[in-house]
């Protein structure tokens, strides 16, 4: 599952980690195992309450581990106090020391490590240069903007070259323009420093843009872990399909022998089905940009799946059109159409929707209704 570089046991190994907060029955983190390679940018993605922040807290040592082990570069750390773990942490609310200047904030971890004064000054200057805040060394954090404060926090968290940098929704408190800007800076820092980054977010776009790999959390467990492309193109669960990007889903029953998903009147082609899905309720998931719209059904390529639908609306969103669809059975979905080529149909017109089965994913239907409802709309809730 993880890119196996031969780096002599470096990296982070999480094995069977659970966390149960006192007074709660359900684990906040439930038997999670994950390997993070040295230098990797790993994102923990999930909705609020999915356990991703608790996982980060256990990595950092702010929360104790109920069960399992955490190894950093071959050393078991799950019982160590935070200050002995040698990790950098960036918080959503910056957590800069308001009584210390920017330079003193950045110098703090170096002083804890008893570094010589001259070395500290040089390192601090270097770190502030890295985040383009060299001129702000003597300011108090309260005199900086949110974006600047977060950059100071980044500088402070990497200045002592920790074994990994943990970030808890670091962009969450910023407005959109600053988010994009800081996102690029974080990507650049990752390239330049070659440090392991572990990034917690609920924002799928941040996750897709920044990460080498993404671990999708839900209900305290990892639903799926993989590269952004893997997760987007080959979601293994309905939750992953829903949470990452938009998609249209067709609900039905899997007939593995015939290689189809029976979905009301349709039999959607589904090659390469997992054996476990045979006879079970399943969902065919297709991304909007993979849906093709045809006015004449005869134009559909051979071997493609097809479903009849009516166009309900067309929304221009700048870089593309979003086409709202109502399928024959009354369910709804979305397709996209590029700006430029003429639109295939106008609202109210009937179309045939088709797609190449290679671009779909078939996942188990967790709701498991035995009555097949042919099509369901599946959209991201984030």
């Amino acid at each position, binding site marked *: 599952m993880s890119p196996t570089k031969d780096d002599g046991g470096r990296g982070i190994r999480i094995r069977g980690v659970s966390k149960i907060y006192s007074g709660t029955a*359900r684990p906040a983190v439930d038997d999670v195992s994950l390997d993070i390679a040295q230098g990797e940018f790993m994102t923990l993605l999930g909705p609020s*309450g999915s356990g991703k*922040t608790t996982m980060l807290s256990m990595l950092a040592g*702010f929360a104790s581990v109920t069960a399992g082990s955490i190894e950093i570069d071959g050393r078991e750390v799950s019982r160590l106090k935070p200050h002995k773990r040698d990790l950098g*942490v960036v*918080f959503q609310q910056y957590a800069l020391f308001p009584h210390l200047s920017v330079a003193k904030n950045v110098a703090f971890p170096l002083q804890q490590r008893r570094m010589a004064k001259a070395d500290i000054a040089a390192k601090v200057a270097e770190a502030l240069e890295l985040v383009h805040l060299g001129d702000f060394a003597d300011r108090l954090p309260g005199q900086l903007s949110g974006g600047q404060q977060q950059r100071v926090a980044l500088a402070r968290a990497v200045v002592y070259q920790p074994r990994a940098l943990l970030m*808890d*929704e670091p962009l969450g408190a910023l407005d959109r323009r600053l988010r994009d800007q800081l996102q690029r800076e974080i990507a650049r820092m990752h390239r330049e420093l070659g440090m392991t980054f572990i990034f917690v977010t609920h924002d799928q776009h941040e996750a897709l843009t920044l990460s080498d790999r993404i671990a999708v959390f839900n209900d305290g467990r990892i639903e799926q872990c993989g590269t952004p492309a893997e997760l987007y193109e080959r979601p293994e669960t309905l939750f992953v399909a829903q949470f990452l990007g938009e998609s249209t889903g067709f609900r039905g029953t899997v007939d593995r022998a015939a290689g189809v998903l029976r979905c009301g009147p349709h039999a959607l082609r589904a090659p390469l089905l997992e054996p476990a899905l045979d006879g079970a309720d399943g969902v065919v998931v297709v991304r909007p940009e993979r849906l093709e719209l045809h006015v004449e059904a005869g134009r559909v390529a051979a071997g493609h799946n097809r479903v009849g639908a009516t166009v309900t609306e067309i929304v221009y969103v700048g870089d593309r059109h979003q086409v709202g669809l109502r399928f024959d059975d009354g369910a709804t979905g979305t397709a996209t159409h590029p700006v430029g080529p003429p639109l295939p149909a106008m609202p109210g017109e009937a179309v045939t929707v088709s797609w190449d089965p290679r671009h779909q994913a078939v996942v188990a239907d967790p709701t498991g209704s035995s009555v097949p409802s042919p099509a369901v709309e599946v959209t991201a809730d984030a």
Partner: protein
Amino acid sequence: MTEPPRDRIKGGKEGGLGWGLRTAVALTGLLLIAPTVVVIPMSFSGADTFEFPPKTWSLRWYRSFFGSEKWMYALLTSLQIGLLVAVVATVLGVAVALGLTRSRFRGLGTVRALLMAPMIMPGIVVAVAIYGVFIRWQLNGTAVGFVVAHTVLALPFVVTAVSTSLSGYDRTMDVAAATLGATAWTTFFRITVPLVAPGVLSGFAFAFVTSLDEVVVALFLQTPDIQTLPVQMYNSITLEIDPTIAAASSLMVVVTTLVLLVPQLVRRERRTR
């Protein structure tokens, strides 16, 4: 989702207080409570001395308190002065609070600080200063003198209490009332007064208790003819060693607590209604 929201990293809440901190808090709590706690049992002592804890129990000091012309006269004097002070200080204090919150002029901050000055000035300096001029004006030993002096001391408490409730008062409600056809007077009595009433009530209570409890100025203004209860208590320790003070102290503790509790209870009642 049934899981408690744990969105952001939170720190320090795991574990709670260590034993060292618990011990420190317990000892500090004991220090805070001790004096109040010893007063009440002491008043039921059967002995003639201030021995604590008492070996025998009786109601004799309450009998002595309520049977003594001197103590009853002091109590009555204190209650009368206290009520007058509370009325005068509340009227003046409400006016000040209204003035401070509803006007702006150069030096407003200074005026506010000066009005609060009696709270922070050393009591003995105030007492000696007032005594000095009251001798000349022949006000010492008079009820007017006591009321005026105590009003000065009580005023800041009323202003603070009323200002607090006024500052939480949204003046757009006045506008709302006006657009609904209310005159300025109707607005004041139907909207402003009910909203500010709890603050005024606690200001009144504070003023009453301030006067009832005041000793330093009262010691200087006293004459054999007019003595307040705290002065009588002071004299009973320094001059007479009269255990009746134990009963008087218990009564004072109970009365001041009740008076200060009433506005709190009224406030809670209004909130839950």
